[in-house]
């Protein structure tokens, strides 16, 4: 079983990774070469091709940093710095994580509540659904600064405004998924409840809710990734001093391209981690609800 799953799952992923890194190195050379040529001309240095390629990979502010520069930066700022230092990626990731999780929690609860309302009240189904869909067509980059400014004016700053942007992005997939999930019981399963003269609450808790759980987790995986995007976007316009978003902004401001890429990597790792955690919880819940092992 083990070597099989290695061959089937790890090898394809590694192959793509190697391909990406190779393309990245080639691209880094071509992006950084003009500037390096310029430098060499001014300093009157002539170098062999190999030396020249080497130089394009170690610039302090390259247009496109080479993979090893980014990896080195991530490693240095993750493991070699105190987590309280504001150069530590762990510190920034933690700040972003806390608002992501808060926003995600509020978004999930809001989404579930909206879905329950839509499924049970015809009026809400007709009136709310178009607005919910419209809400997601508004560009979040335009909404985020307004939310921050408006809340700042009434003295709400810090974590809450950022979390609210995450909420705004994450309630949508949960609401849509849960509407589908709560409506997923088959007619025969609902008829069964009717023959028992079950109350609405009994049908809800004993049939609709358990039937919707797989839908909930699927939409939560989308929602947690959206929450992270929301938190990062929320950090951009606030002049926030901490968080992956502020790190991105500051690095862009000072053209520290390696730092930008390092922050990007940190954000991606965080997203992967969060989605994986939700996935693991989903699997545990599925097993406890009699899910057939895949």
């Amino acid at each position, binding site marked *: 079983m083990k070597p099989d799953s290695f061959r089937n799952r790890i090898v394809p992923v590694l192959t793509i990774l190697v391909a990406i890194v190779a393309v990245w190195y080639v691209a880094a050379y071509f992006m950084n070469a003009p500037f390096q040529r310029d430098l060499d001309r001014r300093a009157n240095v002539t170098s062999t091709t190999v030396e020249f390629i080497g130089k394009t990979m170690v610039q302090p502010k390259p247009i496109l940093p080479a993979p090893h520069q980014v990896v080195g930066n991530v490693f240095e700022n993750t493991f070699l710095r105190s987590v309280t230092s504001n150069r530590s990626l762990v510190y920034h990731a933690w700040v972003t994580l806390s608002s992501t999780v808060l926003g995600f929690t509020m978004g999930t609860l809001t989404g579930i509540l909206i879905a329950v309302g839509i499924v049970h009240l015809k009026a809400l189904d007709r009136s709310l659904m178009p607005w919910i869909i419209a809400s997601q067509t508004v560009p979040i980059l335009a909404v985020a600064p307004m939310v921050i400014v408006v809340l700042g004016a009434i003295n709400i700053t810090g974590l809450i405004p950022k979390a609210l942007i995450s909420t705004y992005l994450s309630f949508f997939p949960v609401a849509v998924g849960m509407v589908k999930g709560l409506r997923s019981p088959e007619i*025969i399963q609902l008829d069964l409840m009717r023959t*028992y*003269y079950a109350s609405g609450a009994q049908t809800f808790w004993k049939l609709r809710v*358990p*039937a919707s759980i797989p839908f909930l987790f699927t939409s939560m995986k989308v929602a947690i990734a959206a929450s992270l995007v929301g938190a990062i976007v929320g950090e951009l316009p606030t002049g926030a001093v901490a968080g992956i978003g502020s790190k991105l902004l500051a690095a862009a401001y000072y053209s520290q391209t390696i730092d930008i890429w390092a922050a990007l990597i940190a954000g991606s790792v965080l997203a992967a981690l969060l989605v994986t955690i939700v996935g693991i919880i989903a699997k545990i819940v599925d097993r406890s609800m*009699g899910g057939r092992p895949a």
Partner: protein
Amino acid sequence: MNNAPSSVVSAKKLGLTFETSDGPVHALSNVDLTVNKGDFVSFIGPSGCGKTTFLRVIADLEKATAGEITVNGMTPEEARKSRSYGYVFQAPALYPWRTIEKNIALPLEIMGYSAADRKARIERTLDLVNLAGFGKKYPWQLSGGMQQRASIARALAFDADLLLMDEPFGALDEIVRDHLNEQLLKLWARTQKTICFVTHSIPEAVYLSTRIVVMSPRPGRVTDVIESTLPKERPLEIRETPEFLEIAHRVREGLRAGHSYEE
């Protein structure tokens, strides 16, 4: 029109018309029928003859649009609200997130039976359908026949004297079906329930029933009611006796008559 105390289901001039975009569909028309306590009544006929619809009217899953019907002397709605019947659907309709015993516990939880009572009833009904020891399994771990037996156990778990079965073995292969038919007869003898059974298999209807209601479509109506002369004790071999074949022949004739009427 008083119902005799022994009548469980009594329909008089019952009709049900569905309004569709293609005009009205007469699913049932002028159905007169009485099901007595302890009867095993089969409803047989081609698809569209209203046999399932009739069962659903008894269960208050559909409303009749003409005539009257009583179930245990009440309207179907009152009967449903007083939980007078157990219903077995074409598919097992077990909840996949509940184990077999939890599935059987479902109606008991809804009807407010105590935990101790639930436990005793689960054990007893699992035993009745020969599923003792499978209570902790999830539905997907059981074969189709076992799942359908579990759904019968679920319908037997609470105190309803009437069992409504809508082609419960229709999706199963013939070998399993024979076996389940045999078990169902034993179960009927042991529990003394009244059973209304929808099927489209002639041998199944003849083998199981004390009365066979032959129905035909457009409009859905009863064309013949055949009293079975077979003894209560019925081994599977009874299906080769002349008496059995005679009744089967009558059912087939009834079905054919219904067909020629419309074509």
